[in-house]
């Protein structure tokens, strides 16, 4: 029985599409009423005052609650089914971490409280900083960046400031592999660098010869994630770091794929100078849907004074905030994402050293098991042993049956699974990228492979209409063209959609 794993979302997502709140609206209904005015009414006379009433939906409180509860139940989630979204590390988030984070002594802490009243919270940040440095092989960490891309920008601004202070401003080029996440070149440009792309070789690794050609006296640094975006371990990482360091550049580690190597190898030992970690991915805090996340940046000793501050230090048996001397400044106002950091610390403590030591190994084991099954159905993009994720390609099916990666992803939804990542990395045509994480059972992995086999066979049938998939969900395939051409961001603009349909 193919169901979508042990926890199928199908019973919850069936049925008709949920109407919009506008369709549920009826004039005069209210979810709550304002009290009667007990002060004299004052007429506001201002040119910016709107002449007409805002067209807000009018519904009763019960209708409102039911509407959003139904939508919530139909939302796919890590807690409902298998979410093999490559590059996103959608692992299970332990409830225990949530229960600690909801303790009022953490949850109700005001960010402006003075140090002497927040020693516990400061200790949390100090401790996780030490753990993170131990895991990544770095010396000092800052918890200022609230997300992964912000961590990237932080790392690049650190490189920039370091070059400025050391009078190396001729170094303006950041090297990024062609397989990298789009955020890498974007962050480099945002920090004011020029982006130079290095090609990937046939095995899916950085092309060392091409890298040597590109590196010169203007090289400021290299951005890399290892294992790389194809899910493969860069075997020549020590050579790569030597090439960059010999040219006076710095190495930046994108923590996107840290989950594969936790407990096994450390970016610091590979030669990286700056590392960002996505606590929300690798250390199992809820993510997706806009955050907050936590993208702490850790550096080697010689870059400590460039970190964004404040950072927590332990001095005279007290924890206090410390502003590094050449700090790049703040990445956001307060440490408002503190509870994400706390959850990550709880996760680390739950696993303990033993658990963390085997984390990456289990993530890789699950991915290799799944890839051994999936590769019999659709071929791997690179015939190499994968790390925590692997990339497949349906380019042959596209030629023979016009089946695109998009169609496979959509059909998989019918079986109660979230789609794997599609069309990424960009250098693999019709890519489907699977990342099971260590928290899925063998039965769930088997179930995904069985479902994939069935849909690939179904989609090749002669009378099939690919656009019909998904068939079992309340909402079918969305029209992606209309929103791309006629973007409607205002609730009242629905009429435009109706016209264009």
């Amino acid at each position, binding site marked *: 029985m193919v169901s979508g794993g042990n926890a199928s979302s199908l019973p919850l997502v069936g049925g008709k599409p949920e109407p919009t709140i506008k369709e549920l609206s009826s004039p005069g209904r209210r979810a709550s009423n304002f009290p009667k005015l007990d002060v004299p009414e004052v007429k506001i006379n201002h040119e910016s005052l709107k002449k007409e009433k805002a067209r807000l939906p009018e519904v009763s409180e019960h209708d409102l609650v039911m509407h959003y509860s139904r939508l919530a139940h139909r939302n796919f989630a890590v807690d409902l089914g298998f979410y093999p979204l490559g590059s996103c590390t959608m692992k299970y988030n332990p409830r225990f971490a949530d229960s600690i984070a909801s303790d009022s002594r953490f949850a109700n802490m005001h960010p402006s409280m003075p140090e002497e009243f927040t020693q516990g919270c400061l200790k949390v940040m100090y401790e996780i900083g030490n753990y993170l440095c131990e895991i990544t092989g770095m010396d000092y960490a800052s918890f200022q960046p609230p997300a992964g891309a912000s961590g990237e920008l932080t790392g690049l601004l650190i490189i920039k400031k370091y070059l400025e202070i050391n009078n190396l401003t001729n170094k303006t080029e950041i090297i990024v592999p062609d397989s990298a996440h789009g955020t890498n070149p974007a962050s480099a440009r945002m920090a004011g660098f020029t982006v130079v792309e290095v090609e990937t070789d046939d095995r899916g690794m950085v092309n060392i010869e091409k890298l040597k050609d590109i590196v010169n006296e203007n090289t400021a640094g290299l951005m890399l994630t290892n294992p790389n975006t194809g899910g493969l371990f860069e075997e020549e990482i020590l050579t790569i770091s030597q090439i960059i360091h010999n040219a006076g550049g710095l190495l930046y580690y994108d923590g996107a794929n840290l989950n594969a190597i936790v407990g096994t190898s450390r970016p610091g030992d590979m030669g990286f100078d700056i590392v960002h970690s996505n606590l929300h991915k690798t250390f199992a805090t809820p993510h997706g849907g806009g955050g907050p996340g936590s993208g702490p940046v850790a550096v080697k000793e010689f870059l400590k004074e460039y970190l964004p501050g404040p950072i927590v230090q332990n001095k005279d048996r007290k924890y206090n905030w410390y502003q590094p001397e050449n700090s790049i400044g703040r990445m956001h106002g307060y440490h408002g994402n503190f509870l994400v950091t706390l959850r990550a610390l709880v996760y680390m403590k739950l696993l303990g050293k033993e658990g963390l030591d085997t984390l990456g190994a289990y993530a890789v084991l699950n991915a290799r098991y799944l890839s051994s099954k999936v590769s019999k159905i659709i071929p791997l993009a690179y015939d190499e042993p994968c790390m925590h994720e692997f990339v497949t390609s349906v380019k042959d099916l596209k030629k023979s049956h016009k089946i695109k990666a998009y169609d496979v992803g959509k059909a998989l939804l019918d079986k109660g699974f979230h789609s794997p990542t599609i069309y990424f990395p960009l250098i693999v045509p019709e890519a489907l990228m699977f990342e099971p994480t260590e928290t899925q059972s063998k039965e769930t992995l088997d179930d995904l492979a069985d479902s994939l086999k069935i849909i690939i066979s179904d989609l090749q049938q002669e009378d099939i209409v690919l656009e019909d998939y998904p068939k079992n969900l309340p909402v079918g395939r969305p029209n992606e063209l209309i929103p*791309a051409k006629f973007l409607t961001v205002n609730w009242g603009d629905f009429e435009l959609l109706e016209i264009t349909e």
Partner: protein
Amino acid sequence: MSDIKYLETHEWYLINEEVITVGISDFAQNELGDIVYVTLPEVGQSFEKGGAVVEVEATKTVAEAYAPMDCTITEVNSQLETEPETINNDPCGDGWMFKAKVNAVDDSGMTYQEYETFVS
């Protein structure tokens, strides 16, 4: 149409005396899917061979069309600004992107047959 030649980066060009007309191939528009926006160059702008001339935005991705040879823009297909889907419907006809005066002739593109082999 026999004079149309193709590049490995999926543009087509047609040389007519000193002027080239450039667009993207049927294969390219098919790979991109529904094209929703096109950023065209300014008339008078000069490009070196391989320079990015046009930005093509599809629902999933953004791609660039490159100059097949050193050239200076003389005319752009402004119809594409309001009807970018013309590229999907007729990539090698009404979906042409720009015309340009050739500054250094480089007629090294592939023939239709060669391009067909290249993309298959």
